[in-house]
């Protein structure tokens, strides 16, 4: 069973298969996981759960990932939470846009669950060091 003290990761993705895949693998890797399928949910969950890290897909229905990131980074309560952007858009300017919105890291899909876990661990340890 998952340790209650394990870091809580909020996985935000509108594509259920991908969201559940990452969530399952993160739990498998020992993290606590919460899920959100759009921007509004992501913001609500973030305020409610105060996760240790948010995996944020940028292309979302309704409020998109960029907007959600901007709101979270704009709020005192959630500003400290590292946000790793996930995107299938490899087109020019995608990563730049994500950084501008406030994302702390950027991962291009497809991303193997193993690679994602490596990135999550790196970000968490970096945050702790700070």
């Amino acid at each position, binding site marked *: 069973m998952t340790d209650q003290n394990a870091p809580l990761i909020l996985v935000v993705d509108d594509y259920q*298969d991908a969201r559940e895949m990452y969530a399952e693998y993160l739990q498998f890797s020992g993290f606590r996981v919460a899920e959100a399928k759009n921007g509004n949910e992501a913001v609500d969950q973030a305020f409610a759960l105060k996760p240790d890290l948010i995996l944020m897909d940028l*292309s979302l229905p309704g409020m998109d990932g960029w907007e959600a990131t901007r709101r979270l980074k704009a709020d005192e309560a959630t500003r400290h939470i590292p946000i790793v952007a996930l995107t299938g858009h490899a087109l020019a300017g995608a990563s730049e846009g994500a950084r501008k919105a406030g994302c702390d890291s950027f991962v291009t899909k497809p991303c193997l669950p193993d690679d994602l876990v490596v990135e999550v661990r790196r970000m968490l340890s970096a945050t702790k060091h700070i």
Partner: protein
Amino acid sequence: MTQLSVRSVPRAPAATATPSSRLELLEYYLAHHDDLALCAQASLEWLARHAGVKRSICLIVDAESSLLAGLAGTGVRTEDVELFSWPLSDPRDPLVAALSHTGPTALRGGRTNGEDRGASSTLFGGGSSTAIPLRPGRASDETAIGLLLVKAAIVLTPDVAWLVTVLSQKIDQIRGRGSLAEEARRLRRERALFFTIINSVTDPILLTDTEGRLIVANARAEKLFAASEEESEGRRRAVELNNMLFSAALSRTAVETPSEARELLLVDPSDGSDLLFEVLSSTVEDPREGTGIVSVLRNITDLRRATEQIEENYQKLRVAEAAARAERDRLNLIIDSVADPIIVTDQGGATVLMNAPAEELFTVSMTADDTAQRTVQANDAHFSSFISGLLLGEGGPGEIRRGEIGLMNPQTSEPIPVEAIAGKVLTETGELTAVVTILHDRREALERARLYEQLKSASDELQMRVQSATAELATQNELLRRQAIELEQASRLKSQFLANMSHEFRTPLNAILGYTHMLLQGVGGELPANVRRQLQRIDSNGRHLLTIINEILDITRIEAGKMPMQITEFDLNEIVQEVMTELDPVITRSRLAVMPRLAAASSPVVQSDRQKVKQIVVNLLSNALKFTHQGGVEIAVEYVPEERAASISVTDTGIGIAPEHHDKIFEDFRQVDDSPSRQYGGTGLGLAICRRLASALGGRIVLRSNLGEGSTFTLTIPADAPQ
């Protein structure tokens, strides 16, 4: 001649002279004891007053010259008396005869007897008169010393007789004493007359001795040759100089022919100007005075000046004439040098002058054949009719007439259409003196016009063609432009579509690869070996599909110009090592030896897009491994700091590429063997992408290879990539 009896003459009423009046006359005689003329005059006036004789003349015998001369007169003209002179040579002459008579002699006036030569009629204006001889002594046979002529007949009254007696005695007395003085007076008169005469001559006249000394000079000559002490210095000097000049001239005259005229330049003493004289000298011999020279000087200063003027004018005329001749020669040369025929005709239409080209048309040699003769005649006729048209005023009143004449060349019978331009030459008063005609050969102009027409039609045609071609081209351009816009639009749509599609591809592929990975990681527990092998097949095919999708996306991004460049500073040696690490599983699987040859001398640090350089090297090494079955692969890094250029070359010992395929392999979706049954996998996009990336980095990829001899792909990039 008639001897008149005095008594027969009727007594005329006359006043009787008183003794006191007689005494008065005698006293006058005493007062003027030596003047014959005055005494005679007083006597005649006494007669007029006391004896009633109003008109009378006293004549006196001049024995020396044998003349009867007038001495005094009353009631007559003085000059008749003074100029009266009557020869005594003819004793039959009534006047001369009267001198011998003892008593008065009646003289008839007019010309009744032919013997009267009119002496008394000269004195009294015609009519008869009486001559009374004057005798100082009583002897009547003595010749009288003079005559008293009175008008008409006279009564010899005692008063008249008394007067005749006393006058005769007085004349005799004076002549006896004073003939010398009388002579001197006469000489003075003559001398005065002489001077009056020579002074009235405007030319200077001089009498000099042979030495040139002045003896007599007239007033003109004195002005030139005589000066008194009172006169100015300049005038005296001029006179002195004139004398010297004149003497010199005279001495020459003495040697040379005397009578010949010669010129003498003197000075005008009054104003110092030059005066030129012509001197005519002649020698006079006088037994008493010796040899003298009479010189007459004629002022020819003005004459000389006029002569010089004439000479000068003549010279000018000569010069002007020469200039006119030269001008005419020059004009002839000019006219002859004009290529067009020029003809000058007079007002009657006759040819005055023509230049050489005109002569070719209008003259013909005598030996020329008939055709030439006829041609010249025809030319002449044409020309004459043209000129007469101008002379008759056809074609308006203008001074210029233009017309076309069809002439022929007499030598070749070739037709020569000419344009004739004729101009009238008018005098200042507007009279026609000549007509100048210039003939201009129009053949050249006609030929030019014909060529011009041809050229123009050709040009027009060409212009039309060009216009239609241009219009067509414009249409084509417009079509092309629209096509280009459409193509651009299509290309953009394609890129957008591909970008979207790749996203759509990735999402499910992400899930496929993710779950496969999770299963292989044992999320679902331990797997049987065959299931594991099957999952690995899913995994490798999924990865391949991802590569294809990524490569398509790259091409799309490059073509859409949306490939961002991220220039950083990095070391090419590191890139090679990273690539070898990344491809380690592939290298291991190929069982080939990969030899890195890094640039050791200097660190090959460049400013470029690290990710893209790495992508190229990965691609090149992957290809080398894929197409090499034995041997090895070498990766060499070179850096030339001087050229700021670096290169990474990948050399394999693989199958090699025939030179004809070298270009093909860089094309999109191409492999050397792109048949469906091809041996090697891959999208065929790898090298196409590499070449595009290299180009974006400012570099290039060069291939050296032959079939079966392996290949070397060399990436060369500048150390500073273009931004």
